[in-house]
């Protein structure tokens, strides 16, 4: 992890974090975070304790709002030991952010803006032995629980 641009007092806690939120890396705004990251960070802090960090100084924090209907959670570096808890907290957060109305008549072809909500995220998992895997997902938010289980299964696969 490149922490060169961070203030000295932040570097240590960023390096020691169990869950680290990293910037979007979008070409136009590589240092910005996805819309809602501030709330997600607060939720993670409340439910997972102090070992959550975000790779930015307070005064430099900015969010990018891309106003299509996708819940973009952003990019996370997660230590294996907290992966199950992290995936559970993410599930609660997604559930709170996306309250889907009841689907209407299924035989009807719905416009794109009425399709089920989509979520996207990238999770890089690392254990103490240096094993690393990266998981990217963009798809129906309703499938998140299955995806979370699949991430754990794929991690355990050699």
């Amino acid at each position, binding site marked *: 992890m490149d922490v060169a641009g961070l203030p000295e007092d932040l570097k240590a806690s960023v390096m020691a974090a169990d869950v680290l939120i990293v910037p979007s890396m979008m070409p136009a705004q590589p240092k910005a975070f996805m819309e809602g990251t501030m709330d997600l960070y607060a939720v993670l802090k409340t439910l997972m304790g102090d070992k959550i960090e*975000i790779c930015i100084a307070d005064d430099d924090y900015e969010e*990018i*709002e891309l*106003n*299509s209907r996708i819940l973009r959670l952003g990019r996370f570096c997660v230590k294996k030991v907290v992966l199950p808890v992290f995936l559970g907290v993410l599930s609660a957060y997604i559930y709170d952010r996306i*309250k889907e*109305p009841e689907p*209407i008549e299924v035989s009807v072809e719905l416009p*794109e803006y009425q399709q089920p909500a989509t979520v996207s995220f990238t999770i890089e998992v690392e254990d103490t032995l240096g094993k690393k895997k990266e998981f990217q997902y963009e798809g129906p938010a309703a499938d998140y629980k299955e995806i979370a289980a699949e991430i754990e299964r794929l991690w355990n696969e050699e």
Partner: protein
Amino acid sequence: MKNKSQEILKHLLEDGFDYDATIKEVDALRKGYQQQHDEENANVAWATLEIVSLHRDYSKAFEMLRDKKYYEAWCLLEQIEIGITHLLRNFSGTKNAVSYIEMMVRQLQSLYPYKVFLSTEMLIKERTCSICGKKRYIRHHCGHFAGHVYNGEMCFDYVEKCALEGVAIVFNPEHKYAVAFGRNGEDDHVDHYDYKLLEGLMDWWKDPYYPWHYTTKYIHKSPDDFSDLTEESKCPCGSGKKFGECCKNDPEGVKHVVYEFKFGLKK
């Protein structure tokens, strides 16, 4: 406040229900509870206010559709959709009070011809909390979350500094009001959309609380049924392709969608 709320909701669908007077009355109660820091009752008052406002707006949207004010109705329907989302996010137990209009709003939206929207991309640099007025910092959260209700008040962000990064054309916008319209000249706004489905519906639908639903099916028609059709025309099947590259070569004919409306409760 709970008893008062139940009493109001019991009469909500009666003929002659005075939405505006009820909203005024409940809002006064809400403010009173807020001053007393009675959060529980202030929140119940907020939810009651929302429900009554949603039903009032739904009736207004119905009137707008009858008056053929389609875009105005579209914007109001979106406001209702957002209002329902906020209500259910905070008070999921109120679902029954709005489930009918939630379903009808979605059905109405799906009958609109709007498919393409404009969407802004904003870089948010600084914002404050609407509840406590504090500047939001990533590591010093005030504890109020946008979209949640505190002491009878919805929390949202005031954006103090931002930059417009771009405008994108999207099919699934966060903000549905940004419909793409054409222009004839500098200020001449043109509504070029075809509202036939809604027009047809409104010929028959006389009461916003009389339910309907619809299904669609595809049939095939002869190209001769479309008199102005050329190779370059947009294909009538709705694929978005040119006719020459789409249904022209289909031996069954031009694919055509048929809407069937049924009035009354779905069986």
